[in-house]
């Protein structure tokens, strides 16, 4: 017998803001941060795209995380934690601080019956990349210095001095971090949350590239629905700034990023005919608190929306291209609607994957049109946030949930000539939304979707 699962709190952090309220309000205002990537990145590679969506400054120490912990924890995990803390606060689940350790407990949750599933595509790779600089360059710099000290001629001194300056211009951590392994491992994202909140239920990192966040929420939903847990912290986190643009370059050389460099505010245009790639994002995080419905109601929890269904399918086609006929995406639609026990015609809102790539946006739009027609409202949240990869599905679930709660949606930015005639949200207004589908179509060929339902707000 499947139990109902509700969302009692959300947290979000992305280029639009460091809490869900700010993110949501800025989304309704059409705030879509985009700027030139740091200038020094161009010294290391010829980059085709020059744009990114940077995160706001976050002072983790001011947020109460001990300084030493910040040194030993990748930003991806720190972001997941502060976002989870916001979600718990919004759910009315207070934290109790330990006297003997830098951790909390959550008295309102059964620690053994709460799971933590977090999506991330690369975990703490930015820390590894930074420490790789230390690993490769420390001894070479010392050897170069020795050559300089031993140099016989002025010409040699000048050349070696110049070489030293070139080396010195690359900054890296002075110490190869003693904790680099637990920092980089993707499971550090949920594990850090579990440790900080003293939660002992299943603790999993889920890695399906751009579908990681959707899948993490979906698996958490099934765990609670099927009685394997009573509550969950679930979502996604991603941090992709290694300081020198290596991660950015990786997406750039695969020709996935927008190259509309001369018009930054118009560059990120999912589903528009002039799109030519997605907007790289520095990162993001989003967490939902899921609870079994009866116990949420019994404790008087705020109920934001309900999770009704989850499904995933796999293309087995290409690492970078969606399967052209959309047949496996439609299998996912079939499966998630069946899991939710509803018909396609009941979906009133789709939060699309909509990255802004030429090929995949076309396939997605055509697949939506073929399967759902032009009924449901279509939101492309990445037109605001850029692509946060492992956090994207979770951020988009938050947008979907808040759209259901507030019966409105943010608009699709820069959508002037849509690639298909489906019902894109072109401006913010009142909507009638009962069921929402939040979907992700990821690198690797993973197709994942969540069905969410509006709950009457009291």
């Amino acid at each position: 017998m499947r139990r109902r699962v509700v969302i009692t709190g959300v947290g979000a952090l992305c280029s639009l803001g460091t809490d869900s309220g700010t993110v949501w309000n800025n989304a309704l205002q059409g705030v879509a941060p985009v700027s030139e990537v740091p200038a020094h990145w161009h010294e290391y590679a010829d980059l085709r795209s020059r744009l990114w969506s940077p995160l706001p400054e976050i002072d983790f120490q001011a947020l109460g995380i001990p300084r030493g912990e910040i040194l030993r924890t990748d930003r991806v995990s720190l972001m997941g934690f502060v976002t989870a803390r916001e979600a718990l606060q919004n759910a009315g689940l207070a934290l109790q601080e330990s006297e003997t350790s830098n951790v909390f407990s959550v008295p309102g949750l059964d620690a053994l019956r709460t799971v933590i599933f977090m999506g991330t595509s690369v975990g703490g790779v930015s820390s590894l990349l930074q420490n790789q600089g230390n690993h490769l360059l420390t001894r070479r710099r010392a050897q170069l210095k020795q050559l300089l000290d031993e140099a016989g001629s002025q010409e040699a001194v000048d050349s070696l001095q110049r070489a030293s300056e070139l080396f010195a211009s690359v900054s890296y951590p002075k110490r190869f971090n003693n904790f680099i392994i637990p920092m980089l491992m993707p499971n550090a994202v949920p594990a850090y949350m579990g440790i900080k909140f003293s939660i002992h239920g299943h603790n999993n990192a889920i890695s399906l590239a751009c579908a990681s966040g959707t899948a993490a929420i979906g698996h958490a939903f099934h765990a609670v629905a099927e009685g394997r847990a009573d509550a969950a912290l679930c979502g996604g986190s991603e941090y992709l700034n290694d300081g020198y643009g290596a991660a950015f370059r990786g997406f750039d050389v695969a020709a996935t990023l927008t190259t509309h460099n001369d018009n930054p505010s118009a560059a990120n245009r999912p589903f528009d005919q002039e799109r030519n790639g997605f907007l790289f994002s520095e990162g993001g995080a989003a967490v939902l608190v899921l609870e079994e419905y009866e116990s949420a109601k019994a404790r008087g929890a705020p109920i934001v929306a309900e999770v009704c269904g989850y499904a995933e399918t796999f293309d087995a086609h290409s690492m970078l291209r969606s399967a052209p006929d959309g047949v496996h995406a439609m299998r996912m639609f079939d499966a998630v609607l069946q899991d939710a026990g509803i018909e396609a015609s009941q979906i009133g809102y789709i939060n699309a994957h909509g990255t802004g790539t030429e090929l995949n946006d076309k396939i997605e739009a055509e697949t939506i049109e073929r399967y759902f027609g032009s009924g449901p409202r279509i939101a492309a949240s990445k037109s605001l946030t850029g692509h946060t990869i492992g956090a994207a599905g979770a951020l988009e679930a938050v947008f979907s949930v808040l759209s259901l709660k507030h019966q409105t949606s943010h608009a699709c930015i820069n959508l002037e000539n849509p690639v298909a005639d489906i019902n894109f949200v072109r401006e913010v207004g009142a909507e009638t939304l009962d069921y929402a589908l939040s979907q992700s179509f990821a690198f690797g060929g993973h197709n994942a979707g969540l069905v969410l339902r509006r709950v009457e707000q009291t």
Partner: protein
Amino acid sequence: MSCRDLTNLHRLVSGRADGQNQCIQRNTPGGYAVADKGDIEERVKKVIRELTGDKTLVIESDSALVDDLGLDSVDFASLVMDLEDEFGGEVNDEEAVKLARVSEIVDYIAAREQ
């Protein structure tokens, strides 16, 4: 120094690697702060207390790191990083693991800074 993405650190041409893994403010930038032993001891105790998060921990000058304060090898791996962060400069891992008492850490830091 604020640096989210090492942008500002990149500008430093200092002849030595001076990066911060998480780009947080340092107490003693460039640091070999000269301080008396009493001040060093207070700061060492603060580092240990923050490392363990144990607000009830009683730390004396002659407290044994392992037997009295319960530090294990993972704590020592953290301790060397936190001491470097607090006092600047380098704390050698192999030497640090031989330090048995709070007072020996204080002596190590004081000797290093002379």
